[in-house]
């Protein structure tokens, strides 16, 4: 096993552990935005798609790279925009009219 593979594996395993640690603290209220936020993060595969396009030199390579770039960009852009759209709807109080809010404390 090469040194490069070992360091990649270490990064992978440690990132998994960080992911478990960070994400287990997200309240259930935010699980949908969490999933769509995570969705946008895996759109980082766009980096791989651009690198693939940079080394493609034949029609098949170009076509595959084009689809990969388009898919990944849709993933990134759509993911962040829709997550933002959702999160801006989460309000502590109703937007316009004040009401007798007997549950003043934070949800969690």
């Amino acid at each position, binding site marked *: 096993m090469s040194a*490069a593979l070992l360091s990649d594996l270490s990064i992978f395993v440690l990132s998994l552990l960080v992911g478990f640690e960070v994400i287990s603290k997200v309240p259930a209220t935010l699980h949908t935005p969490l999933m769509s936020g995570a969705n946008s*993060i895996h759109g980082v595969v766009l980096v*791989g798609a*651009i690198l693939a396009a*940079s080394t493609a030199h034949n029609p098949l390579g170009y076509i595959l790279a084009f689809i990969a770039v388009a898919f990944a960009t849709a993933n990134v852009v759509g993911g962040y925009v829709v997550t933002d759209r959702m999160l801006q709807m989460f309000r502590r109080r109703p937007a316009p009219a004040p009401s007798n809010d007997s549950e003043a404390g934070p949800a969690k």
Partner: protein
Amino acid sequence: MSDFDTVVRLAYLVSAVCFVLGLHLMNSPARARHGNTVSAAGMTLAIVVTIAYVAHQGAITTTGWLIVVAGILVGGVAGLAGARKVHMTDMPQLVSLFNAAGGGAAALVAITEFVRVVTIHGAELSTRATVATVLDVIIGAVTFSGSLIAAGKLQGIITSAPVTFPAVRLMNAVLVLGALGSGSYLIWGDHRATLALVAFLVLGLIFGVTMVMPIGGADMPVVISLLNAFTGTAVAMAGFVIDNSVLIIAGALVGASGSILTKLMATAMNRSIRNIIVGGFGAADSTGVAVVGAGETVRAVEADDVALQLAYAQKVIFVPGYGLAVAQAQHELAALADLLEQRGVDVSYAIHPVAGRMPGHMNVLLAEANVPYPLLKEMDEINPEFARADVALVIGANDVVNPAARRTDSVIAGMPILDVDQAKSIVVMKRSMGHGYAGIDNELFTNPKTGMYFADAKAGLAALVSAVRSLVAS
């Protein structure tokens, strides 16, 4: 390593830190939006740096640049349009489509690399890259076709009922064997076997279809979470193929997130993940339906009775379920809550983990209807409060409020439920006496404290709003 390489790698590290911070900030609704911005900034950095790196390398052809620009434009417009237009009730479909896009792109990255090295240069991938390619292609292909089927089921293009055919298990076994065979050949036989890779890809795509088709609509929260975890893993594998740390880190983070949500959803539905994937619930469904309406009587109530109870209660707990999401009645429910709050009634919402069609979906629907998030209570938080509630109003939820889950001899034994039966009075709003997903009678409905209000969630809640209004006016 050149100076430029070093800068690129450091920038990727900064991006990865932004992703982790962004996810960390999601631990409170107040800071979550900020977290999303931090994550997006990290993403922008990673992409800009990659483009700069590609330009600096100078290996990219003019066609290559055109491909990148066109791909970004097409994908960007499609993603933006989808994200702007989607209704909140349709979020699960959109997330599924993004899973498909991410998984598909991850598989394509590995395939493109394979095409470049093997087909063009006639060289062969290292064993390490081949293993990563095999894993990336199979996970990516299953995610791609599986997510498209899931989205189709959620959208109603494909029937949401479990579709099974007699030989489905045999067929899956053949597919798995075929994939194992062609994958092994690539790894241990010939790293350049293009045909084996193509076969492998096709088998993966078919397997995605046969895996998701037999799964029913009610299991979708688990399926979407699982496919989300798959996508993350596929992206991490793509990172192994091209030796790119930011892909590995981001992929692992998403893999972890998807796994946690899958586990939570499966626990909340009292099912094992294996049980859902194998689709073993069909049998329980049919035996359950056979004992419909076994003699016990229920008490039916009308809108006016319910309105009276609600208007003069001190504490009301709403229990919205899948039925509310399907009827898109969240705005009517919020209007009813507003009306009651104006009368000084203490209103809160009990949210079961699987309410809605994906993890946390009900919270988003209610947030869209302008319900403040402090009123949305998780199961463990609200359960002790039911005993103090004058009225618990159940809208389109069934199995998650069935007290039978507390008995050991029930099909749903051990399933975590909302303790609705502890409330002083219970109103269940439902279209009919039909069964929930587990296909068993709900003992809550025959409880003497329970009134059954037979109505569609949207129309029924609208009727309640006007009934409460006329009570208040008179």
